[in-house]
């Protein structure tokens, strides 16, 4: 939906085979956002449990793998923080397997890790997760295809026009240049999806840290109208 062609992937990208029958062929119609599209769902603290940001807790034991901190700041294209907005993440375990019943990768599940987290950004747009470094895994896109380790991020921002689902990658991963999904993004945009190692936030004797800042599109309104969800 976003047409920032400097950074956004095209819809049709044959190197990623699943786009071939799913990418619309007609050019989307360009419109000005309606006022309802400049608002969005507002999720309160009650939608996020106290341990939801810590994927290493809550399942009865320590998960296997390398414990890491992933944190950063969400801003809009004008540099304004995006406060109190929902972030959802999901990822494989350390062995490269999702807790999804259709994932057939012959790698072990971890009973202490489901790879699912949520949090709200704070008043200044900051977020922080504690998790396990995900593993690479094979897929069937082409011969000997492997996805680089990544964490899926879903962001609501403060308005429908800001909605974003994307993936965060790890620096120095040798699979990055081989991945057709990352390569769908013009070259200058790819570094925006790679976290940086963050020694300052590393917790001694406990966990390495990575920083990944996220920039959502700007909205013309300073303060979107807030509407709570009816039920959930």
């Amino acid at each position, binding site marked *: 939906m976003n047409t920032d062609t400097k950074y956004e992937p095209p819809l049709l990208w044959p190197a990623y085979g699943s786009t071939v029958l799913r990418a619309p062929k007609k050019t989307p119609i360009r419109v000005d956002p309606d006022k309802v599209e400049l608002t969005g*769902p507002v999720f309160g603290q009650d939608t996020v449990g106290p341990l939801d940001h810590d994927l290493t807790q809550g399942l009865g034991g320590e998960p296997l793998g390398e414990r890491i901190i992933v944190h950063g700041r969400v801003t809009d294209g004008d540099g304004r923080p995006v406060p109190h907005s929902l972030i959802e993440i999901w990822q494989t375990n350390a062995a490269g397997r999702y807790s999804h019943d259709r994932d057939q990768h012959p790698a072990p599940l971890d009973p202490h890790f489901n790879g699912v987290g949520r949090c709200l950004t704070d008043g200044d747009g900051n977020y922080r997760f504690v998790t396990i470094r995900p593993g690479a895994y094979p897929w069937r896109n082409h011969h000997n295809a492997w996805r680089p380790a990544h964490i899926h991020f879903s962001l609501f921002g403060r308005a429908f026009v800001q909605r974003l689902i994307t993936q965060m990658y790890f620096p120095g991963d040798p699979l990055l240049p081989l991945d057709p999904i990352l390569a769908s993004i013009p070259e200058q945009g790819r570094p925006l999806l790679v976290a940086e190692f963050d020694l300052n936030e590393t917790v001694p004797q406990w966990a390495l840290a990575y920083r990944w800042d996220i920039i959502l599109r700007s909205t013309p309104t300073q303060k979107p109208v807030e509407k709570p969800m009816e039920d959930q």
Partner: protein
Amino acid sequence: MTPSQTIGPFFAHALFQNHHVVPEGAPGAFWIRGRVFDGAGEPVPDAMIETWQEEGFGRCLTDAQGHWGVHTVAPAGCDFIAVSVFARGLLRRLVTRIPMPATDFDIVLQGENETTFYEY
């Protein structure tokens, strides 16, 4: 801005659903239901559909036959419901608008009856 990437195939265990924008029995409530199809006319079983209107947010995952549905009301002061479509094979979300009134809304990603998608 941070670029988009596909939702991939393995998200159903991770993302909550909210089929009820308004509760059962709410005045004027109805279901909007439809299916999602690809360019070969096959149902898309791994899509996520989100709806947004002033009255609330809906989210559902398509089933094995591509069905989706939300229970809602006609938006006040707006003649459409805003929709996001995510799926494996979609590198960016697709945005469409369900014109009101409507109770059936199929989403055809590609082909002759392709849904009208919008961008800002």
